[in-house]
């Protein structure tokens, strides 16, 4: 059973006063539990649109998108939001921590949309998760008092606090220096391995992409498998 599957997915938008624009064209992708997938592509290649679809934030114009083998179209809007909250964790390039809230409150935020014990014990769960990413001593710090690496760790803790089965990392090291980026990626890898979650990393950095087991390239809306050796070489050259 696949966790997430795209079959011949197309996404078209119609800009005002312009002809229809196909952003994704015939995309096929299967994500299984525990997968490590990287998708590289230049700006404008359709990475964000693909991320929207993978995160159940958007619907394909045509083709099939399934989650747990169930067509996403069959979910109501609210049900899709709930599945996303419970099963998918996002890590963003700009961290996107909520300003004015402590690290603990930021990590507890996704649990506000949970139910039962997860909701009522959200502070304890958030504190445990911050301990896990090595920020047990910065729980009550505001985001603007944290370094870039610490902020991304908080963001990672937030994305993992509900125990998602799929982690979507959108340029997760884009705002970090090389060493910090590397340690952050190692952390994401470790947590994903321990929890058995699938990790899909969207990046334009070949070094980050090279950490994955399956590599894809997105070019002008078309997703193709990338050559691992080529990526490794690019990564080597960059380092």
């Amino acid at each position, binding site marked *: 059973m696949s966790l997430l599957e795209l079959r011949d997915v197309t996404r078209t938008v119609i800009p005002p006063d312009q002809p229809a624009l196909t952003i994704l064209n015939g995309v096929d992708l299967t994500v299984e539990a525990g997968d490590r997938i990287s998708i590289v592509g230049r700006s404008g290649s359709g990475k964000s649109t693909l991320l929207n679809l993978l995160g159940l934030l958007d619907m394909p114009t045509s083709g099939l998108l399934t989650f747990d083998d169930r067509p996403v179209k069959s979910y109501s*809007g609210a049900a899709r*939001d709930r599945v996303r*909250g419970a099963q998918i964790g996002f890590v963003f390039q700009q961290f996107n921590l909520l300003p004015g809230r402590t690290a603990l409150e930021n990590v507890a935020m996704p649990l506000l949309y949970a139910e039962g014990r997860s909701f009522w014990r959200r502070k304890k769960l958030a504190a445990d998760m911050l301990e896990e990413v090595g920020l047990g001593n910065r729980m009550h710090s505001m985001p603007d008092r944290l370094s870039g690496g610490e902020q991304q760790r908080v963001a990672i803790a937030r994305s993992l606090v509900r125990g998602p089965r799929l982690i979507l990392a959108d340029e997760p090291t884009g705002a970090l220096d090389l060493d910090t980026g590397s340690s952050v990626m190692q952390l994401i890898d470790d947590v994903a391995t321990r929890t058995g979650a699938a990790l899909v990393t969207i990046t334009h950095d070949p070094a980050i992409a090279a950490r994955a087991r399956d590599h894809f390239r997105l070019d002008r809306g078309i997703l193709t498998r990338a050559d691992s050796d080529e990526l490794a070489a690019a990564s080597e050259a960059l380092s």
Partner: protein
Amino acid sequence: MKRAFTSLVGAVVEAWQELRVHRTRVLLSLIGVAVAVCSLTTVVALGGIVQQANQELSERQSGRPASLFVSAFSNQGTAIDSATMDATWAETLARYDITYGSRVLQTAQAVPFTTGVVDVQTQAVDQPYGEMHRVRLTEGEWFTDDDAAGLAPALVVNQIFWERLGSPELRTHPTVELGAQGGRPGTTAVIVGVYPVSSYETEPAMFMLADQLSAMTAARPSVAVQDPYGGGGSTQYEMWVPPAISEQLMEVVKRDFTSALATPGGGTGGVQVDVYRQDYAQYGDDPFLVTKLVVGGIAVLVLLLGALGLVNIALVTVKQRVREIGIRRSFGATAGRVFFSVMMESVVATIAAGAVGVIASVLLVQNPWTMDLIGQGLVSDFPPFPAEAAVLGLVAATAVGALAGLLPALVAVRVKVIDAIRY
């Protein structure tokens, strides 16, 4: 059910966090709401009090609804015998079981003060008059049965009269000599009560019982400056009856008086009897309608201005929150939840501001200085802070909060998540 409960609690937690994080902005915008609600509540409350003051003033002057006045006069120009009038009046009250009836005679009595003898304006009335005209006393009490049975006339005097006597303690039964002048002895009268005066009154005045005035005048005709019956002043006959039966009573009282005053030879003998209402409610329409409309109009205007300020700020700030809303959506917040949270935030904040506004309004309206200013010492039943004004204030605050939250909430649910995050 469990989901609904956790959603509610979660939304409240979110709203509270929002208010805490944006407290400066929220405080600034809510000051406007609090001031608007305070103004609205104060205007409505003051309107109620002013209306009560007006009503009491009207009732003091022309009686409570429905006050019927009976007058009779002869077409031949001869005076109607006051004893017959009094007897007919007493019979009428007894026949229709009317508790509140009073004769009213305006007269004057010479009263010696330390500064000289003053002709004091006097109203001779019956005991029920005090209740009928809301006579409020600052000292002592209104005429009792004991006072009516006493040999010495009892007096209820105004504050000026009392102060001219040196404000004596009423439990010492202070007396004045009515009609005493130039060594001539007067009639000893006992002061039993003191009523307040408005700021524009400067002269002493007093009430006394009509029967005692009559007896006093009969015993010592020289004490009265103006004779109560037939000597110039004319007695008014006034009854306070339920408004629902007032029309019917007017007819039967007129019939009975006409019949009683008819000449022995038959016919009415040229006697004209009139029974009419003089209280403020005699025309049936709400006499305070204009006041209410003006007050209501001002209140609504004030609230609209407050609401406009809040909506303005809410619309400006929702732009800044697009990113945050996008982040929440990406972590599982449903569109309904985002809508509810944004609404809740606005409503919770405005209810709090409304409560502050209502409390400020109560403190403003119910303090002695405001009461004195509005009441001018004339309002006896100063109404408590009107509950409807407080409820109106809170409801208005909630409505303003919902209205001000609606537009940002609608904008919030339309946020495109990834665009918002990358914004």
